[in-house]
């Protein structure tokens, strides 16, 4: 039978493949370009002295150590506050809540919370924690404001992770006379843990890179905070101010590179945990 197609199948196939390839290359290319740009401009700065010393003058010289300390501090504190709440909320939503209107509303609220612009979250943190609760610019105020930003992210990834645990594994547990909580705590959560950890680490990357929230809640003061009541300047904020003032662009790129490397390390750790667990279980 004669083909009626105007363009034959092989050709359309090639065109489709070409377009898909272009899209893939554009994605990888965008990441590569950014990384390359930051590396080329920042690599010269990355000396132990830059990482471990304090800035001096009007930030024209010296290193960025206090900003690294402030960043790690606020990130870890935010994760410590958020993770238990988010995981328990997700367990409730996925395992206990009667699936219906209320759960849909909670989920919609979480998704909406996740899409609130971070500058708004910063403003909320300023009003609620810094001023309202009188915490002042502090690591604690920033960690709490970040918690609002991270809560829905960790909650949703945990919920997905819990739902991904196959029904027949749960049934195996129930079939042995396990109660709901025994099944959730001994089978479901351990099975979901690699994916939960992945979600938590990705959220940590988000927290470490957050600028708008922390600038309003822990200020811009160069300080190596020890107590959660102290203020500080995180790396993204430092980067913002350096670039804005234009006085020390090399230091800005050095900070940018270090920040990118930090977040990259978070992501690689997440991938490693997932692959290691897959090996152990498979």
């Amino acid at each position, binding site marked *: 039978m004669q083909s009626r197609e105007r363009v034959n199948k092989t050709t359309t196939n090639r065109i489709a493949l070409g377009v898909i390839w272009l899209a893939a290359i554009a994605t990888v290319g965008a990441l590569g370009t950014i990384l390359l740009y930051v590396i080329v401009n920042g690599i010269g700065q990355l000396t132990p002295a830059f990482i471990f010393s304090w800035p001096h003058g009007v930030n024209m010289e010296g290193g960025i150590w206090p900003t690294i300390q402030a960043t790690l501090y606020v990130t870890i504190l935010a994760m410590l506050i958020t993770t238990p709440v988010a995981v328990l909320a997700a367990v409730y939503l996925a395992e206990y809540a009667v*699936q219906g209107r209320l759960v849909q509303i909670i989920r919609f609220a979480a998704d909406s919370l996740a899409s609130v612009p971070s500058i708004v979250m910063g403003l909320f943190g300023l009003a609620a924690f810094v001023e309202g609760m009188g915490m002042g610019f502090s690591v604690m105020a920033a960690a709490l404001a970040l918690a609002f930003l991270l809560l829905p992210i960790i909650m949703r990834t945990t919920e997905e992770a819990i739902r991904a645990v*196959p029904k*027949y*594994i*749960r*049934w*195996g*547990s*129930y*079939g*042995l*006379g*396990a*109660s709901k909580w*025994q099944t959730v705590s*001994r*089978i479901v959560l*351990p*099975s979901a843990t690699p994916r939960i950890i992945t979600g938590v680490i990705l959220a940590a990357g988000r927290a470490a890179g957050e600028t708008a929230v922390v600038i309003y809640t822990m200020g811009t003061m160069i300080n190596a905070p020890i107590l959660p009541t102290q203020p500080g300047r995180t790396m993204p904020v430092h980067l913002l101010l350096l670039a804005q003032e234009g006085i020390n662009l090399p230091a800005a790129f050095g900070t940018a590179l270090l920040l990118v490397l930090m977040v990259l390390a978070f992501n690689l750790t997440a991938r490693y945990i997932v692959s290691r667990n897959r090996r*152990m*279980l*498979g």
Partner: protein
Amino acid sequence: MSDTLASHMTGVIPTDNHANKFSVQKLDFFYGDFNALTDITVGIKENAVTAFIGPSGCGKSTFLRCLNRMNDLIPGTRNEGRVLLDGNDVYAPGVDPVDLRRRVGMIFQQPNPFPMSIYDNVAYGPRLHGVRKKAELDEIVEASLKRANVWKEVKDIMGRGGLTLSGGQQQRLCIARVLAVEPEVLLMDEPCSAIDPTSVQKVEDLMAELKDRITIVIVTHNMQQAARVSDYTAFFLQEVAGEPAHLIEYDRTASIFTSPRDRRTEDYITGRFG
């Protein structure tokens, strides 16, 4: 009461020395508005193997899950009628399905080891129920794996993940896991349909060994398997799509396979449909 029941059941069971472990009376089962099973009355004999046969979608797996209230886990399901275990209604208020499922264990079509070591898989049930001592657990684990015909294959790799085993070994591991809580009844939902022939043989062997002490109910699509392993056979059929399924005939396996009383049973067994 369980013995008098036998006389007015669908398909009269010849009187014999087996008592009824389960007596099901006029059971109807619903998925939402859909009436999946209707008017099921049957006595399941203690310490014997009963096979449920019938075409796909005839409700035999659904009925199996009624016996240990596994259907409770599926939202929107309900049932009418009574399911008596040793004379007590398992759906009575105050009955904890968690306790029931410990007495009535279940094996699924898809082997479902937990993502933990072989040892921990088998020790899971006893630990749930409060066994803590290492020596005691070791003993239970070994005995259960032996009864499940898988001990020789796993005794040197107890620390390895249960999911690293072959499908057939996984299924026997799951059987060991159930045996470790010493159930009185073992419900097996097509336990052999996803495993290799050598393992099928081993599972059939262990069923023969276990039935001295355990009541076994097996759902199977394999007529030869039903004939080989079971003492009693129940034939289920949904005659019209969308209508509930019925229990058509229930009798000693030998009678069902040599001289079925119902034409539909005969047609199914001889492969005329299904």
